[in-house]
């Protein structure tokens, strides 16, 4: 090194030497936490004297405010051995420390919060729960919440309508029989009872819990067939940021006769999250937007979204959280595909990528959001309580035809959890809920509904067996009308044995008809849809028996048999009066849904290779007509494999959905082109320091299929996702 440079460096170094007696500036430590296979490990709690941090989805962490000198850092996470490292932290500078965590000898059960409305270990739940972790979300590089939930075992989306063990079928998005929660806040649409999956940016979702089977004993209406809880990210201490950008392209239709445009359809998006937190107060803000040209005719969409979270810890054991989101989605409405003669059909019976020329121009703007405030306090090891208030709002404007609607749902809940003795042997959760839903629309009119509920569920360990029992009472009624009551009990048992942990439950579910089902006023294809004020809630009893067992050190099997008896199902019905045809939602159906699901997760050859298999068999019968229940495929299979080696990983998912045996609504499905779905998704990733790059090819085989009449599922889509995390 030239002498002049040495002298210059020495002078610079001298200039920055701390003066005697001056306080030393704290230092910082940053790095990456990975497992022995090289995969990033998220949510690792990193602590040292005076500072703490958590790793993000890419395994990155940054901890500031560390007193200079020798520091001992402790890395801890459930399922891994605790690791401690000692290093010298320079004053006013940062130092990098990458660590590798080894799996603990006994894999620890994940903690869940949805199945019993309190924290519990997964293997203590009496009902089946599927988890989508943040590492699953990062690995699969999905962009929307519904894509994240879609591949969960036993879950199937039919043109945007979620099904858990065949719960909802397909009713054009109306009246979901699955309840969506955002951090425990009910978020189904107040008017149509459906779910807006774009209400929350995926960037803000840390994990998803899917509770299968009737959950009305704790969650009331809509938890008829299951509950999906989106749990948002905790805000870490210090400055953090994350920028995620996506760019991709849709494949052309595989056959030239189906081509509908002369350019490559693209998609792209940009999301940015910034957060700052201290031990007392923390906040985060996410802003993003995305555009898609769509993969079929008239399928463009633009979306803008924002979300924020503020957490205040005024005292030990007390947390006040305010959170919310807002999404504005403008999209072309892609109506059912073009059938013979409705467009330039090129001599074909149907053109799945095209729409009828009379349908061009349909366009919707859909705004939606929520705001919630929660106060949580842990009074002691034995008692904790929380109170929350929430507001969910949806607003849609259809252009061509012109329709509009605004709906609100205001909710409040007070809940307490008692654990006598402070251990997990006994627990009691009780709560009160109240909500008001209203709608103002040119289709549904102006209506409002109130509901008041009380619930309680207790759990007690007797020997090695855990018994739980609880019930919820819901009083629901239109403003100005009377309230109608629903009692929803549930009992459960969990029994650890040598042959695995057995679980069993019997629970009641119900769904109150949505305001849209009760008060529609529109004309569809020349037929008037008329209201029915006599609609009553649809109800179900759900039974389940399951077993979770570890097969060796690296494989876990979970199997469950389920049986649901449903009554008074609400379905759109055609009828005529004095020779005039009408459509009306009526309580007409009785149904039986039974079957089993099976989930197998393991590392068969090497710890670097993680594989999973999930299969659901469903026998769904319409007992009224003694036929197969519509829109319920019999077989649902999901296979996944991921191989990680240092900063690289490759993987894929395969999803098979058997041919849907029976359809309803829009039966004009030319030539009845029902086929099974066989979809292969491939992915590859590279991750280093603050950067990660992911290549995703969904529907890699460009398999063309449809799950509901006249609609087309996405074609092969290649996208690159770049993420920078600070």
């Amino acid at each position: 090194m030239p002498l002049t440079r040495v002298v210059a460096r020495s002078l610079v170094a001298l200039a920055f030497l701390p003066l005697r007696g001056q306080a030393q500036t704290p230092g910082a430590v940053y790095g990456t936490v990975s497992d022995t296979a090289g995969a990033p490990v998220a949510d690792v709690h990193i602590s040292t004297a005076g500072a703490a941090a958590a790793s993000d989805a890419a395994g990155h962490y940054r901890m500031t405010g560390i007193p200079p000198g020798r520091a001992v850092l402790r890395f801890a996470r459930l399922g891994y051995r605790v690791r401690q490292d000692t290093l010298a932290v320079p004053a006013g500078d940062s130092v990098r420390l990458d660590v590798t965590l080894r799996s603990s000898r006994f894999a620890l059960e994940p903690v869940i919060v949805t199945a019993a409305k309190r924290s519990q270990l997964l293997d203590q739940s009496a009902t089946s729960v599927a988890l989508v972790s943040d590492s699953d979300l990062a690995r699969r590089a999905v962009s929307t919440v519904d894509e994240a939930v879609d591949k969960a075992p036993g879950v199937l989306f039919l043109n945007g309508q979620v099904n858990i063990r065949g719960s909802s079928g397909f009713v054009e998005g109306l009246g979901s029989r699955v309840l969506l929660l955002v951090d425990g806040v009910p978020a189904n649409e107040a008017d149509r009872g459906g779910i807006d999956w774009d209400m929350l940016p995926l960037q803000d979702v840390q994990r998803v819990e899917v509770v299968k089977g009737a959950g009305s004993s704790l969650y009331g209406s809509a938890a008829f067939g299951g509950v999906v809880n989106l749990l948002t990210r905790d805000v870490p201490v210090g400055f953090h940021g994350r920028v995620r950008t996506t760019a991709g392209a849709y494949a052309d239709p595989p056959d030239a006769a189906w081509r509908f445009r002369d350019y490559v359809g693209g998609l792209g998006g940009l999301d940015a999250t910034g957060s700052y937190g201290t031990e007392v107060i923390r906040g985060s803000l996410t802003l993003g937007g995305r555009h898609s040209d769509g993969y079929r005719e008239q399928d463009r969409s633009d979306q803008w979204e924002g979300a924020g979270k503020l957490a205040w810890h005024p005292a030990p054991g007390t947390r006040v959280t305010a959170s919310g989101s807002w999404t504005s989605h403008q999209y072309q409405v892609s109506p059912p595909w073009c059938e013979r003669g409705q467009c330039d059909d090129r001599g074909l019976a149907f053109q799945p990528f095209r729409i009828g020329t009379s349908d061009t121009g349909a366009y919707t703007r859909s705004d939606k959001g929520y705001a919630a405030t929660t106060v949580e306090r842990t009074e002691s090891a034995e008692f904790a309580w929380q109170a929350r208030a929430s507001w969910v709002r949806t607003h849609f404007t259809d252009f061509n035809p012109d329709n509009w609607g605004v709906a609100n749902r205001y909710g409040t809940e007070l809940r307490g959890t008692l654990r006598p003795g402070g251990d997990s042997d006994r627990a009691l959760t009780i709560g009160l809920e109240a909500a008001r839903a209203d709608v103002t629309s040119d289709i549904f009119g102006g209506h409002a509904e109130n509901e008041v509920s009380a619930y309680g569920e207790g759990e007690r360990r007797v020997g090695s067996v855990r018994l739980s029992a609880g019930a919820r009472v819901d009083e629901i009624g239109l403003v100005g009308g009377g309230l109608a009551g629903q009692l929803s009990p549930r009992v459960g048992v969990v029994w650890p044995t040598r042959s695995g942990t057995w679980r069993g439950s019997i629970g009641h579910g119900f769904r109150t008809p949505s305001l849209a089902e009760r008060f529609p006023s529109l004309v569809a294809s020349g037929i008037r849809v008329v209201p029915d004020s006599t609609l009553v809630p649809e109800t179900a009893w759900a039974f389940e028996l399951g077993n979770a067992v570890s097969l060796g050190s690296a494989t876990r099997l979970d199997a469950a048999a389920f049986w649901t008896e449903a009554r008074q199902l609400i379905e759109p019905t055609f009828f005529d009066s004095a020779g005039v045809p009408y459509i009306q939602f009526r309580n007409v159906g009785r149904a039986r849904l039974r079957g089993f699901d099976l989930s197998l997760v393991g590392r068969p050859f090497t710890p670097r290779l993680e594989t999973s298999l999930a299969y659901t068999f469903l026998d769904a019968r319409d007992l009224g007509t003694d036929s197969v229940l519509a829109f319920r495929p019999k077989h649902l299979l999901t296979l996944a494999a991921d191989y990680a080696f240092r900063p690289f990983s490759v993987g894929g998912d395969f999803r098979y959905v058997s041919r849907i045996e029976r359809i309803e609504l829009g039966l004009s499905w030319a030539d009845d082109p029902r086929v099974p779905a066989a979809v292969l998704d491939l992915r590859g990733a590279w991750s280093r320091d603050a950067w990660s790059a992911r290549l995703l090819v969904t529907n890699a085989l460009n398999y063309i299929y449809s799950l509901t009449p006249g609609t087309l599922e996405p074609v092969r889509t290649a996208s690159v996702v770049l993420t920078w995390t600070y």
Partner: protein
Amino acid sequence: MPRGVFRAALAIVAALACNDGLQPTPAPTTCPKGGFVGICGTVTLRGAVPRNTSAVYIIAYKVFPQSRNDLFNFQPPLQSLNQLPLDRQSEFYAVTLPSGRYEWVLAAWVDKAFTLAGADTTLQVAGFYRDGADTTAAGSSIVVVSDSGTDSIDFVIDFGAMQRVCTYFPPCP
């Protein structure tokens, strides 16, 4: 996951992936084979399609309507109706119907401004099937639908000679 299961899973993927999905399907020119129950045929279109046309459907009555109250007792059900393409001079059609005897097979024209109250002008008969021996004005050729589909139910749709509902149930306003 045990290795055997992993290999079996790969085999399952390979087997299930050997599936072609949807393929371009040429428009049919004969009654579909295998399982189809209904009528098929070719309609010949005459005259200019009215600008206010919403749709034309082919429907069938088991019993010739006796009054206006019977107008909507047709097959197939409303929710199963398929629009007839109108951009060619002749068009093959296939309509699913329950097996049985039908007294009237016709093409119903629907105005864009269709209302039940204004059915006399917004709902019209654009054409109907009749065989050579049928001499009735309204057409009462019996069509029998068997379990294998009934072909060659051909007729003419004449947009220049459509008949209002009141033609069959007078008086006309």
